[in-house]
């Protein structure tokens, strides 16, 4: 194996007409990496103020066929979840990420919601997870794996519900990754970072877009804005037949 490795690397150097890079050149390349230098960032989300960025996130997520609900507090999340499941004719049963921020939600006020904590099993129909960042640029959710956030929750069940805090909203993918590195205190990423934009889909048969190919058929984003006065649930979704 290592002989193969040397032959490939040697072949590359040969073709480039040089030997291995000298320590100086290597140091320069390492410095470029350590700086996390950004390339061109589109203005679309980056130039917006916070309120406009939120509107952009919602509009882009809805365009990607997610459903978004805005609620004024964590205590309003159970109601938003229960109503959504009822409206979609889904069972009031879900598997939830064993995450402290979700455990702190007063689920007991909606006793008909049956909740299990853990990874997703094949029979689970609905999952509920937190997210790491919400990216306005394309209405994308950034989720990271960990002991409290198993990855199977994002893909196995037919319905995926994600609770997003207002302060998790960022403009770009780069902003989300910066937030993650700052939070972890290291450049070493978690095992998985999932960028999720709308539900699963395919266009492999005659280019018809069908939702729910192998992953979730539905993506429901519950956006918690604690500075919001209203206790009501405000819902945004694409109208039937408005698919792009």
């Amino acid at each position, binding site marked *: 194996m290592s002989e*193969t490795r040397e032959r*490939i*690397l040697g*072949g*590359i*150097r040969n*073709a*480039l*007409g040089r030997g*291995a*890079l000298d320590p100086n050149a290597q140091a320069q*390349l390492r410095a470029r*990496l350590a700086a*996390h*230098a950004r*390339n*061109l960032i*589109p*203005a679309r989300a980056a130039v917006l103020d916070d309120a406009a960025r939120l509107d952009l996130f919602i509009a*882009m997520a809805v365009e*990607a066929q997610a459903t978004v609900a805005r609620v004024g507090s964590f205590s309003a999340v159970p109601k938003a979840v229960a109503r959504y499941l009822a409206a979609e004719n889904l069972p009031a049963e879900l598997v939830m990420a064993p995450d402290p921020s979700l455990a702190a939600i007063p689920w007991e006020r909606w006793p008909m919601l049956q909740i299990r904590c853990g*990874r*997703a099993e*094949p029979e689970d129909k609905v999952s509920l997870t937190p997210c790491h960042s919400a990216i306005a640029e*394309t*209405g*994308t959710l950034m989720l990271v*794996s*960990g002991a409290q956030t*198993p*990855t*199977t929750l994002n*893909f196995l069940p037919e319905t995926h519900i994600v609770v997003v805090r207002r302060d998790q909203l960022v403009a770009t*993918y*780069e902003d989300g*990754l910066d937030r993650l590195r700052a939070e972890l205190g290291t450049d070493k*990423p*978690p*095992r*998985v970072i*999932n*960028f*999720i*934009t*709308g539900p*699963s*889909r*395919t*266009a*492999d*048969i*005659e*280019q*018809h877009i*069908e939702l*729910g*190919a*192998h*992953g*979730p058929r539905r993506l429901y984003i519950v956006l918690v804005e604690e500075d919001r006065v209203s206790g009501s649930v405000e819902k945004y979704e694409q109208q039937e037949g408005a698919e792009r």
Partner: protein
Amino acid sequence: MLATSRNFEANARAGLANDNLQRALGLARTGFPVRRRLAVERLPEFEELREAGRAIKDHTLAHLDFYLELYESNVAAAGGKVHWARTPEEARAAVLQICRSVGAKTVTKGKSMVAEEVGLNEFLEASGITPVETDLGEYIIQLRHEPPSHIIAPAIHLMKEQVAETFRAEHRALDPARSLAEPRQMCDEARATLRPRFLAADAGITGANFLVAETGSSIIVTNEGNGDLTQTLPKVHIVVTSIEKVVPSFEDAATLLRLLARSATGQEFSSYTTISTGPRRPGDLDGPEQYHVILLDNGRSRLLGTEFQDMLRCIRCAACLNHCPVYAAVGGHAYGWVYPGPMGAVLTPSLIGVEEARHLPNASTFCGRCESVCPVKIPLPKMMRHWREREFVKKLNPPVYRSVLSLWAWVTRRPTLYHALAELAARALGWVGRYRGRFRSLPLANGWTAVRDMPAPEGRSFHSLWAERHR
């Protein structure tokens, strides 16, 4: 995969005569380009991003040895392992050895063009391991024992009735009277059929759209979520990919990701972009216990420093296929190997030799649309010309073709003779065609006149008219 690129001419004729293929290509011809254009128009920086994407790839290729070594050490630091492979044989052997080490009986697969390149499915089957393709398009063509005809939409050559027929023939446990009239029903049937396969698989094989040197991560981009189930559920995740997929950092990957979905399907972003780094961590409730990367060269490193180096920038978006009039007419199977369309016309001779693939660089009108839509600005027509030159130098074209071409070159290098002959031809053809104004048939030009008339010249060559006016 066994190449039939040698038979391009016959393959293309068969494609043109295939009604189902022509109907399917008709759908693709309009769909992809329109969606791409709309997405590009919504992002004012798209042109600048193309330039940035090109710069990232050029920088990486100029330091490819450094970034690959860095990538390898970071994969190892995260608990994974890189297996270098110079040839398809070495890549297949590495996959088999990993599968055998865990006693794998079935493996699920996310779409990987490199796996197609090394002929992984046939090899695994022959070794007693069942590969199950999980991307809907790949699953359909696996059932039909066909190769993919497009690099992002592998079953684009099929109409829904053909898919329904295949499902009826293969899913024999299901009610034969069920309706399979709509894509929705077939999509649901594939989902239900494949779900237990996902859960039972011992290993999951995916490709990679990008590898990140700084972190040792692999990135996959899918819409179905099949790649994520493939790499999350089994004990072992094997990434089958190639050396030019590496980029320095997340920031560099982010720029290329902004180009990829828009160029490919016209989406703002694909449903799932997943960055994976190593196997399951302590405390994780799911994820693979082992993480392996097969890093294939297969002739790519030889392209560095040559006139074909720019081809290694390719991010496999398929925009060049989607905008190619030749691809749209003959379909992907005509090209006879893994990579069709303009990118295939350049890459195939690079990887399997111009002797086998010499027709492909000729399968172009040089209209230039491929280069104009390429997200990393690969000069595809120019490189096809380079291959045509090599074909000529290596004496691969038929003798008649070569002697006519040599004669033509001889004449065009002698301007006085050329102008005299052109004037003679213009006068002669003008005189012969003076009544009708066009020709129904011409000797040596049946290829043209079989399907259309040739207009008769006015009777004078352009040069002589020009000379007269400027006397």
